């Protein structure tokens, strides 16, 4: 009896493993092997053109040494964090506010507002940057509008480049946070809120003491997902400011592209990629720690 049970169990496991194979192969081919190759290339002098393109050599830690002595690295890391924090704060606060204000509102209202905000999210990055370019340009929509009120125009893209890319990214990403918070807020039981109100808590107290603690897991998850996607933003910044003017919006992905593809130094570019991977990994670990202690 027990033997046949075990046999059945083994068979089940085998079946499951067979079904997993395609996924594993895909993961291996498109994720694990490229990562291993990237790690390897970051220790070589591989180049896109020039004599090093023909036969590249292992150069040890040279790429990393050069990266760490280059003042631009520090500037890029700083820019990446400014962009990250600005985007996170903007997306989370705005996403939460919209979700909160939309809670318990009439269905018709939600149906109109929801898709409007989703539009920014559904659009590809490059379309978002083109829209923002048209909006923030010196002779763009925004300046034309405030021009009607006789307010002098603002040079957003070249005068306040970091602010511009943060606003663009917030517009692009708010909908994702909003949806996360919407579903979390829907799960906050009305009874607790009711009870709080009966006990004499005002709206703000209810929000801070009741609702936020109830959805703090969602806040953490949302922050983590936003962090990882913001760290990788390239097309948006590239199309809006190209990392400039000067180094003003040069984030790590832009720095990596410039080094790897514009300067043709693929090896050094991949080394910067590893730095980006490290930043992402550290952020993930911090967030998972934060999540764990709450359990």
């Amino acid at each position, binding site marked *: 009896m027990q033997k046949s049970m075990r046999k059945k169990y083994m068979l089940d496991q085998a079946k499951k493993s067979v079904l997993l194979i395609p996924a594993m192969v895909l993961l291996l081919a498109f994720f694990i092997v490229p990562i291993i190759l990237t790690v390897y290339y970051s220790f070589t002098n591989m*180049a*896109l*053109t*020039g*004599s*090093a*393109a*023909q036969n590249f050599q292992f150069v040890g830690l040279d790429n990393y040494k*050069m990266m760490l*002595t*280059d*003042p*631009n690295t520090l500037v890029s890391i700083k820019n990446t964090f400014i962009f990250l924090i600005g985007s996170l704060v903007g997306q989370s606060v705005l996403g939460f506010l919209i979700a909160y204000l939309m809670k318990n509102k009439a269905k018709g209202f939600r149906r109109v507002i929801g898709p409007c905000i989703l539009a920014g999210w*559904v659009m*590809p990055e490059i379309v978002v940057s083109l829209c923002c370019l048209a909006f923030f*340009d*010196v002779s763009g929509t925004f300046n034309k509008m405030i021009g009607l009120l006789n307010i002098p125009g603002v*040079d957003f*893209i*070249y005068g306040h480049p970091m602010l511009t890319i943060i606003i663009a990214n917030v517009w692009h990403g708010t909908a994702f946070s909003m949806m996360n918070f919407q579903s979390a807020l829907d799960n906050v039981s009305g009874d607790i809120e009711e009870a709080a109100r009966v006990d004499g808590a005002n709206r703000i107290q209810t929000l801070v003491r009741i609702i936020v603690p109830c959805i703090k897991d969602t806040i953490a998850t949302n922050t983590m997902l936003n962090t990882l996607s913001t760290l990788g933003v390239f097309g948006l910044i590239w199309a809006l400011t*190209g*990392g*400039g*003017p*000067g*180094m*003003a919006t040069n984030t790590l992905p832009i720095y990596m592209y*410039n080094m790897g*593809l*514009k*300067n*043709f*130094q693929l090896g*050094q570019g991949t080394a910067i990629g590893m730095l980006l991977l490290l930043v992402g990994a550290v952020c993930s670990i911090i967030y998972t720690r934060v999540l764990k202690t709450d359990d």
Partner: protein
Amino acid sequence: MKKKQIMALLMTSVMAFSMAACGGSGGSSDGGDSSSGGDSGSSGKSKITFTFRDDGTDLETNALYKWVNAAYESWDKKDEVELDVAPITADEGNYFTKIALQLADPGTCPDLVCEDTFQLPNDAAAGYLTDLTDYVADYADWNDGKYYESMQKMVTMDDKVYGIPYCTDTRGLWYNKSVLEQAGVIAAGEEWQPESWQDILDACKAIKDNCPDVVPFWCNAGKASGEATSMQTYEMIYYGTGARLQDEDGKWITKSPEIEESLQFLSDIFTNGYGPSLSLVLNGQAANTSSREYLPQNKLGIDLDGIWITGSWKENGAAPWDGYEDEVGLAAMPTSEGQDPGTVTLAGGWALSIPENSDNKDLTFEFIQHMMSPDVYLQSILDQGNICTRTDTAEEEEYSAQPFFETATKFLETADFRPQNDQYSTVSTSIQAMVESVVSGTSPADAMNQYHTEVARVVGEDNTVQK
């Protein structure tokens, strides 16, 4: 329940949409493969794929597009060979990246490619380009002195020929006569020739004071303008101090008073408000904006740029300008303080090369010969608005009578060239970064330090020198 259904529907449609988008891009790249990789078309014909840069304004007015089509139409092998015109729409900065990626991959490699002569040594060293030495040995025009020797040198590396030069160029200061007259810099009918950088700054000041809505001075200054920023701007200024990018031992000079002096001049232009706004000059269209809009519309005083900008002012150009020969003047760029030789210019040029991965080399070389044959070539060099590389074309009345060509060709006699080695094109991107940071407010000293760091990263600390 209903909500769930709607949600499911929404999710499915979003997924389907994004998959369709992926499929779309995959499909187009497949298309690219088959058009450039497969060299025998469906009809069994051979196929030549021609790749060049297009700036995205209007392909029909692109001089190279017109040239290749005209050459193909008049080619006697037209019926046996199919022509695939495959422009790369990119700013100059990204063109070379795309070319390098294409040349490295047999699947996407074109058969005929336009190479800037500064990028040529780099791509040749990478093994991307076919050594044409054996081909040119049988090319009568090449050996009969029909090509200028200096042009032949530009495409030769270690005694091997890697391309057929099809244009060269010189640079100078283009000025709008009516603006300069209004500013009081010149009297009516007078020509302007500054003797030093200070003269340029003085002229800029006069324009700024007297013509409020006019941009006094324009030069390429952004990374997006690519090589144009290095060559038309930085090197035109820097070579005027008498210094060069490399010293006699071939080491790159990364810190010197001359570099700082040149950057200071640029900084003076932009901090005093003589330059265009950053939003105009730091994007990839900057050179078109200045030559096709601002200069013809009397919104610009002085433009530091190359002879080819006259190409777009011609009748069939991208921005026809009737009577431009009377409206603008061309002055030589002076040395920093007017010291010998008094003026400075740089010459570059482009070449037609056959990638190593092309599998139709013999036929492609025949096509190059036809493209460069005097009849076909003449119209093309007129369209390009550039200086020709053939001695016989230079003597054609139609060519030599073009406005400004006598002056621009005379510049060529004393022209300087860029360093011809496989490191220059990478050093050049560091120059662009340095120029962009100076015009957007970084101090010359800081920008120079950054330049040193970046160049040392690429060529090695041992190959740099500080003076």
